[in-house]
């Protein structure tokens, strides 16, 4: 069962595209029409690079690499997902930077510099784990992810 079949509630509405068959998603942030910088999450009034105010919603690159990561060994208050879990800072191929969970393999097995792709995954949002919500994260990029990326050139990333 895919994450998207488990729940249709999205943790941050509008933050990513509807999941594909493999739970693959594209994050949706903003792009500055003046300097071209992309960033996540959206909802800002000025560009984080040049302070330009002419911003548009933009789908971000699916692939990126892990810039830094850590392993959380205990659950912070209000978090009901599995522990330990990995949190990473990912720099996407279009320059946007995202801090979120790294999923799809053992938390202890991550390395800086690994190639990753964006995916939806489900996390519970109540202590009894009755209710879950679709979240965004990055998993190791599969050959399929890399092949898809080769078909879409960086220029076509713009929405």
């Amino acid at each position: 069962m895919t994450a998207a079949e488990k729940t249709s509630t999205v943790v941050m509405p509008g933050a990513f595209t509807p999941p594909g068959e493999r739970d693959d998603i594209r994050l949706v942030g903003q792009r500055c029409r003046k300097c071209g910088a992309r960033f996540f999450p959206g909802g800002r009034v000025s560009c984080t690079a040049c302070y330009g105010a002419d911003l548009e919603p933009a789908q971000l690159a699916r692939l990126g690499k892990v810039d830094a990561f850590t392993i959380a060994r205990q659950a912070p208050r209000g978090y009901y997902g599995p522990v330990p879990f990995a949190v990473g800072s990912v720099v996407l191929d279009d320059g946007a930077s995202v801090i979120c969970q790294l999923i799809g393999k053992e938390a202890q097995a991550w390395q800086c510099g690994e190639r990753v792709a964006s995916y939806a995954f489900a996390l519970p949002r109540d202590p009894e784990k009755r209710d879950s919500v679709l979240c965004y994260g990055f998993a190791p990029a599969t050959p399929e992810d890399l092949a898809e990326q080769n078909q879409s050139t960086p220029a076509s990333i713009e929405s």
Partner: protein
Amino acid sequence: MSNAYIIGLGITRFDRYPDRGVESIAAEAIQKALADAAIGWGEVQQFYAAHVKQGVAAGQRVAKQVGPSGLPVLNVENCAAAGATAIREASLAIRAGEYDVVAVAGFEKMDPGLLAVYPDGDPRTVMGLTVLPMRFSLMGMKHMHEYGTTLEQFAQVSVKNHDHAIHNPIAQFPKAVSVEQVMHSRMICDPITVLQCSPTSDGAAAVILCSDAFLKKHGRSRAVRVVASALTSDIDEQTRNMHTLEIMERAANEAYERAGLGPGDLDVVETHDCFTVSELIAYEALGLCPKGEGGRMIDERQTWIGGKIPVNPSGGLLARGHPLGATGVAQIAEIAIQLRGEAGPRQVENARVGLASNTGMWSCCVTLLDRPH
């Protein structure tokens, strides 16, 4: 323009006080500071109250506890940087000529467990992204990857600060720990183990600040001068991909420039070791060593008392304790104690210029102090 001077200071023991209200803890520190300055509460022209989670108008509640006065009260919330921020605001008011003598107190009675910054149900909470000390863990892991910094080097910061705290009568954990104990304590968020996290603490610290005119009239030979201060906030942590202490570097550089001083002029430093990683990387952000050499500094014991530039002679947040609003005031008070030459067994020899660096989410306040000739 007048200078601002610290003419009195008081700190309670940092501990857990289940049976005392925060007002009583804060009032104790203020009374000690007033006695140290040899002035009365009635002479204080404004009271700055630094705290983070002590409820509405905590400063007014504290002021009444100290004594009837009706003086102006300003509450300062700036997360864990509240204390130094309040002293900065107080010193600016004196420099501007608005007041001749003011009091600043930082105080906190903390809830148990890790500090919750975002409410339950916030997307960041649901996704586990509010886990502490994630921000410093990412910094530490990146530092290890880029510069080869080791787990042992981070652990040594905790060993040093616990060792320093043995000689600080107000410290919460004045006992030695070994590098093995620190490294093998429970892992919280890699590379940070539980003995590399500052504790939850209750406590208060207070200082009395005055102008040139008041100092001349009052004549306190132990006065310490606030030479310069700078306050910065985070530009945009996520989008700029900053796993560094850029906010501290910027604040330090601004303060150095205003004071006409540089890192080479410092004799003693108190920095915000909320976690070991934040102290080791602060060596670089404050310019005490080049980028990537923080690990070498701790290996060579340069930041121990007796080393080239002692850092956190008080024991720091790790061992003195970290009552959020009190921390920045306690840091500056420790520098003042050191510059007065009154630190006893933890005294840094010939300390004339000191720096305190107080960080919160997501601000940093750096203060430079000296002993006027």
